[in-house]
């Protein structure tokens, strides 16, 4: 709409609009709305009048967190070729404050890449520990010079199915893994085994949904 080219029954449009880009609207009479800044979109203001405002929706790159409501998927691809999540920076984290991360398909690592597993520490309490990582450094109760470990609980939803290793926290204290103790998350293994030294190591499988821990290997690396 260009000033002077618009003709109305009252003949007043040209007296309302005087600048290129203006548009006409009614608010207790004819009003001119100046053209908005580049990239702005025409919307309805809080006063229920037309107005130019910054466009809603996403603008790349995002400068604040993007929040999805519960049960909303971020979908990539439409059944065609590969999709990618690219990251270029330091470490990339997928943070889950509750629950766990579940893949519903097989997982593979690209050639030359490695899966590394972290460790955590546990202190024996009444002959038991609760697993929290794939390798547990185990200390004796009350820093006693020796202590028996009868059970390692890996039955939690986020733990069952884990492979895990046990190592003594310190060579000065001996953790004795007791084989086939009745009940609970005991160790199914051929014989008792002393983690007598920080070099000793025992490896188990907490088979998914099973209670016991199945022995895989024991390394008495210090005599």
């Amino acid at each position, binding site marked *: 709409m260009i000033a002077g080219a618009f003709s109305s029954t009252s003949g007043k449009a040209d007296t309302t609009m005087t600048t290129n880009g203006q548009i006409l609207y009614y608010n207790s009479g004819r009003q001119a709305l100046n053209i908005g800044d580049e990239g702005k979109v025409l919307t309805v203001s809080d006063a229920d009048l037309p107005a130019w405002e910054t466009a809603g929706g996403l603008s790349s790159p995002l400068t604040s967190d993007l929040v999805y409501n519960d049960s909303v998927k971020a979908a990539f691809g439409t059944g065609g070729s590969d999709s990618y999540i690219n990251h270029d920076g330091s470490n990339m984290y997928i943070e889950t404050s509750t629950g766990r991360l579940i893949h519903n398909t097989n997982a593979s690592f690209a050639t030359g890449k490695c899966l590394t597993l972290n460790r955590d520490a546990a202190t024996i309490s009444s002959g038991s520990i609760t697993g929290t990582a794939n390798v547990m450094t185990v200390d004796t109760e009350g*820093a006693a*010079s*020796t*202590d*028996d470990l009868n059970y390692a609980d890996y039955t939690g939803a986020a733990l069952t199915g884990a492979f895990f290793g046990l190592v003594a926290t*310190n*060579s*000065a*204290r*001996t953790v*004795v893994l*007791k*084989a*086939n103790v009745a009940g609970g998350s005991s160790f199914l*293994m*051929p*014989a*008792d*085994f*002393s983690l*007598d*030294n920080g070099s000793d190591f025992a490896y188990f499988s907490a088979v998914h949904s099973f209670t016991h821990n199945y022995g895989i290997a*024991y390394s*008495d690396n*210090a*005599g």
Partner: protein
Amino acid sequence: MKCPLGLVYRKNCIRTLRSVWNKKSTKDYVIERCKAVAGNCLPVLVIDDNDITQEAKCYFINHTFDGFEEYDDKILCRRVEAIAKYSVTKYNIQKSNKSKEDKEKYVLLNERLNYKHETLEPKDEKDFNKFVKGLQN
């Protein structure tokens, strides 16, 4: 029944010291564990902690599971004799009433000196020898 200090379950044997083995409770423990888990029927290698130059003795549970008989396995004997000083010193440190920090420090030095046969810094070696001598008094 807790595993006695100084009785160490290895993959092929159980290693211990004469002073530990001489206790009835130690033998009772080994018998109980043999009965509980057949895999625990292993030769018991005993180092003489009064004289580590002596040959290690080897015992095996008898067929009635109420005692032990001498058993001859020179390979296992040589293996434990090779680490006799390390084993005896470690046990003496572990059973002492020294602080947790001292035990950690001197067990590690014992491992370096008597197991890995490393040369310690003169000050560390002097401290270690003094500490170990103090355990014997």
